[in-house]
C-alpha cells in the first residue's frame, strides 16, 4: 500500500489529444471528408482517425496511465514508458494520415500507410504492456478495472485489424484472407474501437470517477457483473465470431446482430447502475463535470435508441455516419471533455499545492476553475454536436460545416479554460503561489518523490 503518484506524461497526452480534436473539427469545418466526400473516402478516414486515435485514444491512454493505478491501488508499472508510447503513437498517426492523403491522390510513397500502422501497433503494444503489467500485479481486480481490461483487449483487436487494412491499402500484401478481412472486417474494427476500447473503458472508469466525485457507493452487484460479462461476450462474439465467419467465407452479419443484442443488455445494465449512482449520491449539488458527464450519458442512451431504430427500419447502412458521429462526439467526446475539466484541475492542484498542504494557505481545487464561464461552452458544444448529427442525417454539407465550426469554437474555449487552470490564472493572487510551490509546467507533471 504505497499510494499513487502523479503520472508524469498524462498532461502531454491531453494536450496532443486536444490539438488533434481541434484539428479534426477544423477539417470538418472546412468541408473535408463526409458528407462532401464519400463516407469511406480517404479524406473521411483521415478525419475519423484523427478523432479516434489522435483525440479519443490519446485522451484515454493519458487518463489510464493516471487512473488505472487509482482503480487498483498500485503504482503504474513504468512511469517512463508513456513518453516512448506517445512518440510511437503520434509518429504512427502522422504516417497514417499521410497514407490516407496519398490514397486520396496526394504524392508520396504508398508504404507510408503500413509503416504508420506498424508504429501505431508498437505504440499501443507499449501502452498495453505497461497497463497490462500494472493490472496483472493487482489481481483479483475490482469491477472498474475489469471493464478496463476488456477495453484494453478490444484495443489490441482494433489496432491489429487496422494494421491488416494498412497492409492491404499500402500494397504490401494481397493474400485472399487479408482481402476478405479488409472488405468485410470494417464493422468489426469500428465496433472493437468505438464500442470495446473507448466505450467499455469509459464505462469502467466512469463507475469509479462518478462515485468518487459525487460521494456515491460504487456499483458492484450482480447487475454490474452481468453488464461486464454481457459486454465482454458481445465484443467476443463480434470480433472473434466475425473474424471466424470472414475466414470461413460467411458474412459476419450474424455475429454483429448477436453481439449487438448482448451489447444492448450491457448498456441497459450500465445505465441502470449509473442512474442508481446519481440517485444515491451524498453530494446533492454536483459539479460541472458530473453534470456534463450526465449530458454525455444521455447521448449514449440516445445513440443506443437511434441504433435500434436504424436497425429496425433497415436503414443502418444509409445512416451509419450520424450514428458514429453521435457516439464519438455526443457520448465519448462529451464525457472526455467533462472529465478533463475536473482531472486537469485536480492533478494541477495536487502537483502544485500537495507538498505544502497544511503548511501554508492554499486554494481549494474548485478555486482553480471558473465553472460558470466554462458551463456555457459545454452547452454550446453539446448543442452544436446535436445540430451536426441532425444535419448529417440530411447530408446537408453546409450546415454540417457550420455545426463543426461551432463545436470547434466551444472546444477551443474549453481548451483555453484548461490552459487557465494549468497556469493557475483564476487562483487569487494572495494564495496562488505560497512559499514552497512553483508554477506547474504546462505539459509535464513534476512531483518530487519520497
Amino acid at each position, binding site marked *: *500500500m*504505497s*499510494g*499513487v*503518484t502523479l503520472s508524469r506524461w498524462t498532461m502531454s497526452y491531453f494536450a496532443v489529444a486536444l490539438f488533434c480534436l481541434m484539428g479534426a473539427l477544423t477539417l470538418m469545418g472546412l468541408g473535408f471528408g463526409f458528407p462532401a466526400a464519400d463516407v469511406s473516402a480517404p479524406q473521411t478516414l483521415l478525419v475519423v482517425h484523427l478523432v479516434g486515435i489522435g483525440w479519443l485514444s490519446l485522451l484515454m491512454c493519458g487518463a489510464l496511465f493516471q487512473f488505472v*493505478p*487509482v482503480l487498483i*491501488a498500485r503504482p503504474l508499472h513504468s512511469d517512463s514508458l508513456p513518453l516512448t508510447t506517445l512518440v510511437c503513437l503520434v509518429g504512427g498517426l502522422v504516417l497514417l494520415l499521410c497514407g490516407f492523403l496519398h490514397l486520396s491522390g496526394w504524392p508520396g510513397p504508398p508504404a507510408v500507410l503500413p509503416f504508420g500502422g506498424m508504429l501505431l501497433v508498437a505504440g499501443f503494444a507499449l501502452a498495453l504492456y505497461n497497463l497490462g503489467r500494472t493490472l496483472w500485479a493487482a489481481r*483479483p481486480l475490482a469491477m472498474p478495472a475489469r471493464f478496463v481490461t476488456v477495453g484494453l483487449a478490444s484495443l489490441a483487436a482494433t489496432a491489429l485489424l487496422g494494421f491488416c487494412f494498412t497492409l492491404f491499402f499500402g500494397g504490401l500484401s494481397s493474400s485472399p484472407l487479408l482481402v476478405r478481412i479488409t472488405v468485410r472486417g470494417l464493422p468489426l474494427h469500428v465496433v472493437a474501437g468505438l464500442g470495446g476500447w473507448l466505450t467499455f473503458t469509459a464505462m469502467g472508469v466512469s463507475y469509479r470517477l462518478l462515485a*468518487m*466525485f459525487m*460521494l456515491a*457507493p460504487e456499483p458492484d452487484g450482480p447487475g454490474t457483473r452481468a453488464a461486464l460479462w454481457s459486454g465482454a461476450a458481445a465484443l467476443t462474439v463480434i470480433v472473434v465470431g466475425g473474424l471466424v465467419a470472414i475466414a470461413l467465407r460467411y458474412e459476419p452479419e450474424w455475429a454483429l446482430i448477436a453481439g449487438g443484442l448482448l451489447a444492448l443488455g450491457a448498456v441497459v445494465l450500465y445505465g441502470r447502475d449509473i442512474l442508481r449512482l446519481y440517485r444515491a449520491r*451524498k*453530494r446533492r449539488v454536483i459539479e460541472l463535470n458530473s453534470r456534463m458527464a450526465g449530458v454525455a450519458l444521455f447521448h449514449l442512451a440516445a445513440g443506443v435508441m437511434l441504433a435500434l431504430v436504424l436497425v429496425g427500419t433497415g436503414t443502418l447502412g444509409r445512416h451509419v455516419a450520424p450514428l458514429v458521429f453521435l457516439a464519438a462526439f455526443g457520448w465519448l467526446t462529451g464525457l472526455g471533455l467533462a472529465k478533463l475539466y475536473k482531472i486537469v484541475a*485536480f492533478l494541477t*492542484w*495536487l502537483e502544485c499545492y*500537495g*507538498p505544502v*498542504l*497544511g*503548511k501554508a494557505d*492554499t486554494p*481549494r*481545487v474548485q478555486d482553480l476553475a471558473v465553472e460558470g464561464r466554462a458551463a456555457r461552452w459545454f452547452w454550446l458544444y453539446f448543442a452544436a454536436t446535436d445540430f451536426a448529427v441532425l444535419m448529417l442525417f440530411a447530408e446537408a454539407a453546409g450546415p454540417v460545416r457550420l455545426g463543426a465550426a461551432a463545436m470547434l469554437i466551444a472546444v477551443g474555449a474549453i481548451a483555453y479554460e484548461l490552459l487557465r487552470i494549468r497556469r493557475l490564472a483564476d487562483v487569487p493572487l494572495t494564495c496562488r503561489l505560497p512559499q514552497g510551490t512553483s508554477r506547474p509546467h504546462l505539459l509535464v507533471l513534476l512531483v*518530487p*518523490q*519520497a
Partner: protein
Amino acid sequence: MTTTFVDVDVRPTLRAGGEPFGEIMAAVNTLPPGHGMRLLATFKPVPLFSVLGSKGFMHEEREIGGGDWEVLFSPREAVSEATAPSVSAADDTDWPAPAREMDNRDLDPPEPMVRILAATEQMQPGEVLSALLCREPMFLLPELAKRGHSWRGGFDEDGSTYRIRILIGGAAESQQ
C-alpha cells in the same frame, strides 16, 4: 523462495455465527518471519485483503467448493521502505493511542487529504492521528511518506469505511 503457510480455518467460527477477525489478526501477529497464512473461510474475505495488504501481505484466493474460499496470504518480499514505511513496522500494539481522531467520510475529495495533512502539521512527533475515510486515500500516502510519517490502514469488515492511523514522524524514527 517457497513460502511456508500456517493454516487458519475460521469456518467453524463463522458457521457458529462468531466474529473471526480477532482470531485472524492474532494468527497474523504470531507468524514467524517469512511465513504466510492459509485462510479458510465461508466467503471471500475481501476487506481482509486491504488490511493484510497494509501489513505487507499479498493474497491469492480461490473458491474450493461449497461456497468456501481458500486465501493464501504470503509476505511481500520487496516492499519499498521509502514509499511504504508503515509496512515495515511491527504489530499494532507498539503505537500509542490516537491523540486526535477525525471522521472524514462525508467530505468531498480531496478535503479529507487536506484536513489530515493540516492536522499532521499541528501534531507532535510520536503522536498518532486516527481518521475515518470512505475510500483508500491513494494520493495522501506518498505525501505522508515524503513528510516522514508512518501509517497503517485498511477497510473495516463491511468494506465501507477505511480507517487510517498515522504516526507523526514515524518513518524518521524507524530509520534511526
